[in-house]
């Protein structure tokens, strides 16, 4: 089906704004869902048959119309966007109902939500720099309006400003990257850029600009600061779209630009990407561990996962650059696989967080607890999300990290000793990241959903409506499916490197759909279905065998707790306490302000864990600009004669120059 349908439907859903406050629910979201469906269909279509679809719209510049094109890579993104959008469309109506009577009315949500989706889809479709940039900035701008939707808190305004500013800077750097390519290609359409012969130096410049721009959008350390500010403050279904999809669009842009347009990759780029990715992954998860605002924590995890994706991309670049196309393809597939997975489970988690927010109006985990009993469905889906993002079998997160490991483990084929060391070390960092992520989600789930309720709101929590549960259920199901059928998915994804670089993964599915053997059966194999089967069997046996006899029934009693008195909610381990050992161990990475406040008797412990990069990068830049601004004011001291002096001086100097 024609890919253009999806963005058109998205634009139509923006028209839901016209239908008043209830337009979003009754008109916006259904069209949203249709757009998602269309995207899924056309995406799958292009994964199955790789012949690109293309179209030229008579828009934009007179001599440069909008070129649209959808190939396999675009197909992956369409599939991804579609899945999340569909879930959001199911989830949204229930979620936004309460806004209809709030101060900030939902028309803005409908309008900019639709534009946002259309922007993302068009970015994927764009086949010339101009259309790409228009769609790109449309995406940024509309998402900015979504971030500032709840603008009565000053924090949200700050977040929105920071977000828009960094998005703009990133966009400019991307634009410059395109301009570099266009200067050699003699045109702004991607076809010309692909064809162009660009010397390595300029290729590297273009790559660096793209890395900067897309990295800024994707939230790589140290350009991540906007992400944990902006994502949490948007309405949750929007956070799901931003964290789940928009970051992926940035990844798409990077892949498109680096592998497709710039071409002729150099392994040095791979090293840069690899290191940045590893650092982002590790710092992302460490900062996430320190958070106790649920959505903020999830946002930091986006930094982590994007880091993992870029580790994969870095591996791909290294292998392609050193002439091992198959391994490069493996790295690329691993990265794309993780992109897909992260979209699914991060959207799932954000929707879950939204459901909790909806039910308890509470974002701070320190006030949650025992939600599993109150909201079994949400709790169950959230657990799936946690297991998936913690990269535990048999869910999808594990598969992509496994593939990344497999790629990293092939370092021995490389000639350069440095790379041989670098790859395993980054893999080790990946391992550490994974384990910390597991720790973090034990904390999240244990504190939020298990134990005893810590707050009044939470005690009164109710399960959310059917639509919201369906939305989460869809994503949870997808997580499981992508985890159990890795061979199929990897096979589909392998089409991307085949189209971009000319090599796929010949071995991946060679042993049949049951076995995932990325390089060769002898090297490594993973049969997810069998693992699941084994788990199920073992469980069944154990359960049946143990449940026999007279000791079947379970009797309840109050917890023993080493014989201490009955534990109250206050005695539970808090999120902060849970993270304390890790805070101690990695203390140097955080800006910790910790101590006792208040006078004798009524002292309170207070703890502030900040992001070091503010002090390292952002504030200095701001200071610099302000200083420069103060400098130039001498031009305008307010005295007319001084102004006249400037004019006369200018005149004389110019005359002297001219004559």
């Amino acid at each position, binding site marked *: 089906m024609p890919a253009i349908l999806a963005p058109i439907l998205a634009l139509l859903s923006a028209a839901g704004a016209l239908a008043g406050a209830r337009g979003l629910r009754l008109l916006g979201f259904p069209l949203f869902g249709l757009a998602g469906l269309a995207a899924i269909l056309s995406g799958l279509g292009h994964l199955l048959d790789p012949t690109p679809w293309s179209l030229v719209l008579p828009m934009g510049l007179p001599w440069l119309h909008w070129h649209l094109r959808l190939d396999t890579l675009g197909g992956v993104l369409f599939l991804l966007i579609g899945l999340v959008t569909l879930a959001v469309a199911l989830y949204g109506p229930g979620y936004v109902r309460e806004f209809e009577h709030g101060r900030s009315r939902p028309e803005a949500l409908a309008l900019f939500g639709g534009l946002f989706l259309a922007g993302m889809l068009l970015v994927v479709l764009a086949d010339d720099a101009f259309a790409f940039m228009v769609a790109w900035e449309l995406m940024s701008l509309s998402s900015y309006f979504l971030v500032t939707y709840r603008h009565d808190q000053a924090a949200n305004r700050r977040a929105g400003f920071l977000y828009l500013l960094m998005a703009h800077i990133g966009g400019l750097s991307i634009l410059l990257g395109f301009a570099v390519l266009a200067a050699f290609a003699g045109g702004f359409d991607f076809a010309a850029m692909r064809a162009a012969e660009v010397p390595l130096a300029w290729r590297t410049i273009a790559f660096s600009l793209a890395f900067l721009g897309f990295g800024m959008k994707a939230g790589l350390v140290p350009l991540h600061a906007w992400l944990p500010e902006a994502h949490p403050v948007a309405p949750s279904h929007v956070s799901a779209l931003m964290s789940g999809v928009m970051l992926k669009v940035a990844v798409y842009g990077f892949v498109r630009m680096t592998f497709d347009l710039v071409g002729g990759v150099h392994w040095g780029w791979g090293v840069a990407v690899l290191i940045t990715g590893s650092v982002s992954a590790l710092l992302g998860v460490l900062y996430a561990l320190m958070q106790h605002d649920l959505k903020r924590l999830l946002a930091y995890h986006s930094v982590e996962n994007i880091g993992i994706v870029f580790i994969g991309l870095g591996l791909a670049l290294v292998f392609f650059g050193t002439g091992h196309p198959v391994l490069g393809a493996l790295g690329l597939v691993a990265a794309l696989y993780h992109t897909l997975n992260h979209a699914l489970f991060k959207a799932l988690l954000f929707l879950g967080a939204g459901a909790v927010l909806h039910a308890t109006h509470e974002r701070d985990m320190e006030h949650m607890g025992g939600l599993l009993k109150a909201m079994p469905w949400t709790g169950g889906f959230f657990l799936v999300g946690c297991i998936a993002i913690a990269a535990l079998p048999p869910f999808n997160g594990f598969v992509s990290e496994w593939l990344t490991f497999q790629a990293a483990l092939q370092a021995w084929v490389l000639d350069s000793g440095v790379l041989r060391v670098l790859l395993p070390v980054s893999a080790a960092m990946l391992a550490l990241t994974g384990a910390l992520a597991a*720790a973090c989600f034990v904390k999240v789930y244990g504190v939020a959903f298990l134990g005893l309720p810590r707050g009044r709101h939470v005690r009164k929590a109710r399960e959310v409506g059917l639509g919201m549960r369906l939305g989460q259920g869809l994503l949870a199901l997808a997580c499981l499916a992508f985890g159990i059928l890795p061979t199929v998915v990897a096979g589909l994804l392998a089409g991307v490197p085949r189209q971009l670089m000319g090599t796929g993964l010949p071995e991946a599915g060679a042993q049949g759909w049951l076995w995932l053997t990325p390089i060769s059966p002898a*090297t490594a194999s993973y049969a997810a279905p069998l693992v699941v089967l084994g788990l199920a069997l073992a469980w069944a046996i154990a359960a049946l065998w143990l449940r026999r006899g007279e000791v079947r029934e379970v009797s309840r009693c109050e917890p023993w707790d080493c014989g201490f008195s009955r534990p109250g909610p206050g005695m*539970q381990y808090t999120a902060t306490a849970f993270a304390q050992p890790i805070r101690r161990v990695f203390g140097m990475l955080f800006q910790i302000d910790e101590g006792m406040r208040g006078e004798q008797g009524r002292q309170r412990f207070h703890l502030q864990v900040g992001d070091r990069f503010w002090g390292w990068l952002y504030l200095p830049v701001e200071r610099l600009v302000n200083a420069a601004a103060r400098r130039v004011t001498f031009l305008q001291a307010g005295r007319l004669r001084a102004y006249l002096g400037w004019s006369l001086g200018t005149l004389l100097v110019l005359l002297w120059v001219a004559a």
Partner: protein
Amino acid sequence: MQLALVVAGAPLLAGWVKSVKARLQNRRGPGPLQPYRDLRKLFMKQVLVADSASIVFRAAPYVVFTSTLLATAAVPLAVRDLPTAPVADIMVVVGLLALGRFFLALAGMDVGTAFGGMGASREMLISALAEPATLMAIFTLTMSAHSTNLSTVVGFQLTQGLVLHPSYLFALMGLVLVAVAETGRIPVDNPATHLELTMVHEAMILEYSGRHLALMEWAAWLKLTLYGVLIANVFFPWGIGETTDPGAFGIGLAVIVAKLALLGLALAVSETVLAKMRLFRVPQYLNLAFLFALLGMLSFLILEVAA
């Protein structure tokens, strides 16, 4: 078949270690078969569940047990090429163990007692720090064997015969340290203590009783055995059966039992001479492990890859 053996044998190893320890501390401790009695007793007992506990609490034991079980299934015990081997390579094994740990920790936090949370928090810290070391050690092996399938690795070892790899030495040391940490033995954790502030593993299963407790304990012993077998068979594979015919199988079985007995002895000795360390010494301990593993990797890349 072999899986059943492992499952059956696991408590024996634990018991063996216990009794040896007792001897070393010249006490007359319980015999090596004590764990079986414990299990029987627990299975007979009725299950008490804290009223604040949720479904996760009750499901956890099964998940922990089954995931550990599955992990064990992938490790060659007496014979090399198991039919189950290619299902899961070493990293899947690690992943399965992590899954078990994940639920263990969740169960710890479920009841909402202070100790549960404490145990979970510490357990996750230790495991997180142990992970890279484990992976590094494994990478060293797998990179020399060009494979992450355990049977392939073992086979590689056998075929190349007795070669002294400096890298293996480091990897071995690293892996041993990690194994000690992962299985919750002294000096990282003390399976015997119920002293509130020092518990890690015990703190998490504090609220369990009856068959749940039995499964938890059993899973822990399985894990111990698994690491034992891993170390034994990957680094000293000699004697393991090449084929599945009963003869080879028997020999392999005898050999592995002997190896495990030795390992258990070593463990017991170390536990007697060492004292448990503070929690915040553990990171340094695990850094040491990571250092070993990294050295192994480096020495592999520097000294051996040319070969």
